[in-house]
């Protein structure tokens, strides 16, 4: 089996995470629990789609086969995607959506902060821009997890259930492979495992404040980031997202 280009692989991982999560968040449009949250959800989705354009745009340039960010988003099949399993998970209720968002944002923020010092100038520039947006996403998602965790007798169990459901998808972010090793050695991206300590510390603080209990098991599902085994959810998401491009090949929109 030929080895993928590590830099391309890395950019797809970044861009597919933001693309798939952006899609999921956009599914909330017009259905939020309160108008301000509708606006914030749309805003988050918009930022994530904007970041996708940058990551996948650079991926297309690096690949050098003339594929645009749109081609990569709309014309790859599930096994070619490199998003983590967490972001593919369905929205569930608002609590589940915000728990997924917080778990992602907490990793995303640490990752982007590290990437700002990347030896690769374009990656550092994208990270610097995205970090500003993600700082706000993280502030909001952490705040909502805390407020709904430490809310009512009804909201707390819902948030605990969301944490129990989604925590087993967190570990995948910190699993490293040959791609990660190559990039870490080149100073392009951090070793994923190196972010775990800061992640755990922040998670623990947030969950304490939210009066929620972290599961004991560190078991993690994996296979999304490497593309070896995505969830069943991804195919349905792509069916919807890619439909027009697949149904009318070559059309411009």
């Amino acid at each position, binding site marked *: 089996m030929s080895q993928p280009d590590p830099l391309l692989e890395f950019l797809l991982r970044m861009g597919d995470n933001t693309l798939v999560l952006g899609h999921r968040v956009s599914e909330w*449009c017009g259905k939020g*629990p309160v108008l301000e949250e509708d606006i914030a959800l749309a805003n988050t989705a*918009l930022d994530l789609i*904007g970041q996708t*354009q940058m990551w*996948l745009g650079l991926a297309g340039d690096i690949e050098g086969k003339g594929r645009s960010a749109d081609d990569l988003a709309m014309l790859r099949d599930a096994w070619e995607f490199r998003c983590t399993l967490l972001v593919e998970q369905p929205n569930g209720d*608002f609590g589940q959506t915000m728990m997924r968002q917080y778990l992602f944002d907490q990793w995303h923020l640490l990752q982007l902060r590290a990437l700002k010092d990347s030896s690769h100038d374009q990656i550092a520039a994208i990270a610097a821009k995205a970090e500003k947006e993600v700082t706000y996403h993280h502030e909001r998602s952490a705040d909502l997890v805390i407020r709904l965790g430490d*809310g009512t007798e009804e909201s707390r169990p819902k948030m605990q259930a969301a944490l129990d459901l989604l925590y087993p998808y967190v570990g995948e972010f910190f699993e490293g492979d040959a791609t990660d090793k190559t990039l870490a050695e080149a100073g392009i991206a951090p070793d994923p495992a190196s972010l775990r300590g800061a992640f755990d510390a922040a998670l623990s603080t947030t969950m304490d404040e939210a009066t929620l209990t972290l599961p004991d098991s560190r078991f993690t599902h994996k296979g999304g980031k490497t593309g070896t085994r995505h969830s069943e959810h991804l195919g349905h998401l792509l069916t919807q997202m890619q439909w027009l491009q697949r149904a009318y090949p070559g059309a411009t929109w």
Partner: protein
Amino acid sequence: MYAQMVKSEGPKDQDDPTKLAEFQARIDAGEKIEPKDWMPEGYRKTLIRQIGQHAHSEIVGQLPEGNWITRAPTLERKAILLAKVQDEAGHGLYLYCAAETLGVSRDEMTEMLLDGRMKYSSIFAYPTLTWADMGAVGWLVDGAAIMNQVPLQRTSFGPYSRAMIRVCKEESFHQRQGFDIMMKMCAGSPAQKQMAQDALNRFWYPALMMFGPSDKDSVHSSQSMAWKIKMNTNDELRQKFVDQTVPQAEYLGLTVPDDTLAWNEEKGGYDFAEPDWDEFFEVLKGNGPCSVDRIATRKKAWDDGAWVRDGLMAHAEKARAAKVAAE
């Protein structure tokens, strides 16, 4: 136009005639009425209905466009559509705030929308079936809304007028992006052009209905015009919309679905067919193609969100109590 058939009320017996005359004089002099100023009860009630209906239309209006966000054909189109729908939620927010200054809460207005006591614009009870509908909605629906909202920037009630100034800036951008989608579709493959024509066929008459039936002889309507709550008659606005839109359709190479459409030199405008007003009244009664779905979706969002709103309130209360205890 996002407020249709708003039941307007005239001055009431209890209104002090001197105050009423002073109030009218302020309006005639072009002054803005602010929330704490004296106002006739009929003025206040009519405005609550009109601004509330307008706000509800922005909120329900997220749904037909939200229907295509997850299927937008490119990342850029997805981003533009998301931004647009986000703007609409923002418009809803300003408008609810403007209505709240008149003494009604956003929650009360929401309940009234969900139980049918308040309405939203008939246009949002129609389905969006293809991507071209995103173009047609921007071009025709936002185009029609702008016709009404530009004059409303001069409306007499200060908070409503200021909300309209902000809304209009964004709406004109929305209309341009809708027209841009139509241009792309019409310059595209035969299937895309057909999709664009189909969208125009389905949205033309519902867009004309947005202005409401002729109101030139309505007593209530003339009261609203005297109070500068309503700035033009429905027929004036509809005529203006047709005159602006027909050349745009010609530019796109699309056919307006009206065999009677003809330029009338004498009046300097087009003659055109009236929409089916029976259909319009059915839509207002809740018999539009998507009426049941739209309200069911909003009701589900509201009901499913109750635990979230309660949780946030409870936490805010705990935080407040903790702060007091610490002081």
